[in-house]
């Protein structure tokens, strides 16, 4: 875990309301693993007060890491106006990364909206022949161009709610279709996105007895396990009633979480 002031290399809009920011930090970049996040201080003022957590969505040239964010509130509205030459205080890399140690298995990476961020990093380090990225958005204007983080369009399927690009419908339709025709062993699932989507992916995984890891989002204060503000209900197989998203997650096996309480 490193705390430092990092230079912004670029901060550009790559889809509607969606920004890709690169920050220079050889230290954080060399430690970062897919699924981990950084806590970013968006301004030095007392309002807004707290740092914001952002998944790391990739690295560049060994000394930069990138975050992908959608402007949704006060913090991200400040962030969108930052640019090259500005510095931001960053703390990271934090949290438990995805576990993708199993070789030879196909992985489905299931993304809802801006939840694609940690999965872009994961897709970038996986063997392209072994992973398929399924991404859902509201409309085509929101679609994140994956080549911006160095990925190819191959093995990418897109769904939009309004049908303006790819499949008309939700990303779990795509997953359903893929799993329905899958005949090459048991795939592993990795998912990040809105809660209803995660619940659907988890239910499909339980039904088919597939291994599935999800990256979960909550409000956070410290990001490092001190405040216990980011608790989520654990399943009965865990020894404690709550797990901390910042420390025990943000990546969890679906079997660690109490899905009814989420």
């Amino acid at each position: 875990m490193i705390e430092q002031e990092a230079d912004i290399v670029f901060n550009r809009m790559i889809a509607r309301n969606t920004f890709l920011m690169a920050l220079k930090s050889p230290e954080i970049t060399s430690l970062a693993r897919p699924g981990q996040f950084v806590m970013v201080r968006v301004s030095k003022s007392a309002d807004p007060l707290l740092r914001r957590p952002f998944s790391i969505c990739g690295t560049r040239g060994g000394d930069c890491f990138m975050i992908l964010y959608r402007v949704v509130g006060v913090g991200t509205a400040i962030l969108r106006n930052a640019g090259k030459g500005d510095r931001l205080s960053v703390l990271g890399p934090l949290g438990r990364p995805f576990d993708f140690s199993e070789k030879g298995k196909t992985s489905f990476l299931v993304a809802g909206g801006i939840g694609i961020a940690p999965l872009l990093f994961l897709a970038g380090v996986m063997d392209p022949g072994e992973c398929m990225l399924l991404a859902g958005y509201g409309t085509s204007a929101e679609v994140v161009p994956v080549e911006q983080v160095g990925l190819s369009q191959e093995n990418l399927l897109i769904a939009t709610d309004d049908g303006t690009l790819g499949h008309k419908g939700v990303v779990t339709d795509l997953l359903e279709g893929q799993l329905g025709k899958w005949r090459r062993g048991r795939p592993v699932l990795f998912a990040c996105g809105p809660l209803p989507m995660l619940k659907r992916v988890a239910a499909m995984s339980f039904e088919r007895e597939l291994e599935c890891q999800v990256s979960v989002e909550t409000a956070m204060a410290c990001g490092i396990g001190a405040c216990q503000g980011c608790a989520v209900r654990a399943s009965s197989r865990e020894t404690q009633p709550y797990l901390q998203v910042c420390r025990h997650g943000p990546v969890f096996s679906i079997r660690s979480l109490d899905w009814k309480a989420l």
Partner: protein
Amino acid sequence: MTGDRPDLTVNIGSIELNNPVLAASGTFGYGEQYAEVVDLSRLGGIVVKGLSLRPRPGNPPPRIVETPCGMLNAIGLANMGLEEFLNEKLPWLRKLDTVVIVNIYGHNVEEYGMVAEGLRGAEGISALEVNVSCPNVEQGGMAFGTDPDASARVTEQVLKKADKPVIVKLTPNVTDIRSVAQAVERAGAHGISLINTLSGMAIDVEKRVPRLANVSGGLSGPAIRPVALYMVYQVVRAVNLPVIGVGGIMNYRDALEFLIAGARAVQVGTANFVNPSTMLEIIEGLERFCRAQGIIDINEIIGSLKED
């Protein structure tokens, strides 16, 4: 003398601190997370997470929400309980070259005493801080702290069972904090820390539901600093006990306000989340300030407020 390092040593009763900057309970865990980025031996001390007799799971989420210049929390004193603390955390804390104060909590008067008794003989603990001020638990906590007599009863019970100095942490959610402070002083406390968080709430207007599952929470951060400062000012003048100032301190100038008002030391809480190095920066800032003012001993600043 101005080139020399000013002496930042302060005393809270019999406890000597290398400098007046402590980590506030509940914002620093047991220090181990922060140890990666902060040299803990440079701190005045650490007040560890509120400890209860048995483990407490804490409140359901959402537990926190950001508010203007602050945040609300309703963690609910989630902690591992006395036994695990003694076995798993204290040995590590003992190795740190810093003062460790244990914040304790009970459901009832007897239970406060039982936690204090359980910590008897435990090496590496400099003092107890009695939490009669947590707003986020159904029993105990603030229920005692809002009543001078109940605060005194808890204090007496802890003093009876403890073998260490006892500091009582007060809640600001009262009409007259001086009467609680005086009751605690009469009961024999060795020191007072204040303030704990202010009760508050926030509502999600789209969903029309409270933003915290607990409905209410405790407000912390710079938003509460003027309230905290005035209460410290009042209590310093109402009792003869050493007072530790807590509430929204973000930098050395904030800390100076509390020291000038008469606090012997300060605790830093929410600011640790924003910037893990806050306490070190405050210590450095106090040193710089003393040097610039030609002050060789920080005690010259404490209680130096000029009033007509």
